[in-house]
């Protein structure tokens, strides 16, 4: 301990205190401050750049998902449109069929009605012709004054043969 104290040099202590204080001050002013400032600047620059890159990537992802969404929507819309078109087509066809069927039915009905009418008219004409014929036959029969019964029957049959039912 005594040797230690003996070795301790107060002069060197003072000298080194002064020199070290000067060194610390000079180092801080000329070296550490600018170095640390630049290092911090650089680090914050790097951090900002990284953040910016991150954000850009996120934006890209967002854009991509937006695009996908758009494509999906467009596809859905297209599908819907196609479906609508198909529906409309089917509807139109079925409507046309119904209409055609209706028209055909009325046409047939009309035809049937006119056929009936024609038939009635024809029948009426036949009746009239039959009546006329009957009257003619009766006239001729009466006119001839037939002697025999057999001649009478022959005559009727002959007349009837002549009358072809048309």
């Amino acid at each position, binding site marked *: 301990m005594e040797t230690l104290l003996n070795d301790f*040099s*107060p002069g*060197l202590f003072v000298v*080194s205190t002064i020199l*070290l204080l000067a060194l610390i001050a000079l180092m801080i002013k000329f070296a550490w401050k600018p170095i640390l400032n630049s*290092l911090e600047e650089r680090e914050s620059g790097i951090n900002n750049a990284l953040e910016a890159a991150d954000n850009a990537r996120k934006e890209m992802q967002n854009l991509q998902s937006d695009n996908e969404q758009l494509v999906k929507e467009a596809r859905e819309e297209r599908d819907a449109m196609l479906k609508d078109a198909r529906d409309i087509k089917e509807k139109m066809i079925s409507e046309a069929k119904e209409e055609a069927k209706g028209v055909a039915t009325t046409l047939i009905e009309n035809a049937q009605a006119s056929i009936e009418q024609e038939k009635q008219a024809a029948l009426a004409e036949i009746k009239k012709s039959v009546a006329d014929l009957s009257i003619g036959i009766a006239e001729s029969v009466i006119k001839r004054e037939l002697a025999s019964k057999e001649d009478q029957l022959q005559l009727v049959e002959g007349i009837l043969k002549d009358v072809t039912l048309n």
Partner: protein
Amino acid sequence: MKIAQKSIKFLTIVAIALFSISGYAVDADKNQDPKKDGGQVNTKTEVEEYILHHIKDSHDFSLFSYTSDSGERKHLGFPLPVILWSSEGLVTFMSSEFHHNDDGHVIVEKDGLKFAKIHSKIYELDSDAATVAFDDTHHATNAHKVLDFSITKSAFGLILIGAFMLLWFSKLARQYKTKKVPTGFGRILEPLVLYVRDEIARPNIGEKHYRRFTGYLLTVFFFIWILNLAGLTPLGFNVTGQLAVTACLAIFTLVIYTVSGTKGYWMHMIWMPGVPVLIRPVLAIIELAGALVIKPFSLLVRLFANISAGHIVVMSLIAIMFTLQESLGVVGATGLSLLLSFFITLIEVLVAFLQAYIFTMLSALFIGMAVDDHKHH
């Protein structure tokens, strides 16, 4: 530009080398103790003395010494200025005037005052004394120590490394003005700066306050580390093994955490909440002693002891070359010495970093405790 810079560096190195050799080389100590071998260090006691002498601060910068053919002891190195605050005021001269004498035999007369150097300490002789008189325990009886503000080897090393630090790191700072990532030597320094900031300052002090103290911690870290490493080179600095220097650093840390201590920190120290009132004064004494004495003392002693011990071990292992020469032979002793000192030097490289890290980390920890908000109570 680059070539110019390189040639300037080269010229500086050459100039230093020439200066150290020519300026001082043939400055033999004629008045040195009359040892027959001219002051060579061979025996065990001489080795011990030499090591203890090395551990101490020195007034000249000497790289090594050798004995010339004529038997003169020559030193390679250069002198450093001696600045003394004597009884008559400021006295300055170059350390070469002591002629490497370290036992008080060479008396330097300056401004009518007489000075002698004994074991790396400069004494002022009493006015009537012509030579230093010693008592039985080898203490000078007619001389007293003076306040010695000399630029000693340690102070010189401090200035040198400080200048290098300023040069390197201000260059790194300038690099950031033109580019985002430093090039060259700055590429080595940058991760070290980041290491101290992110691994020492930030976790120990906390995100909120660390900025204020990072400058100090960085300075201390690089200062201790580089000087520790410089101590392992043949330049033989032992700056971080000087009590005065480590005490200075420890006191800086003490001042910083004492000044920046929050109210909560002082409350916890002086009047600990949540503890019976009677125990509080006792705790206060313990806490105050811990904060004001034990913490800085542990800092200064840890660094001093580790670095001094490292120097002593390395030098002792090198000295095996001489001390075990008789029992192992020249080759055996030299081989053993080289092997052991090589591995211990490797360990010392690690210790150099470790001690710088521990000092800085503990400083950061103490500062962190002082500026903590103490909200958890």
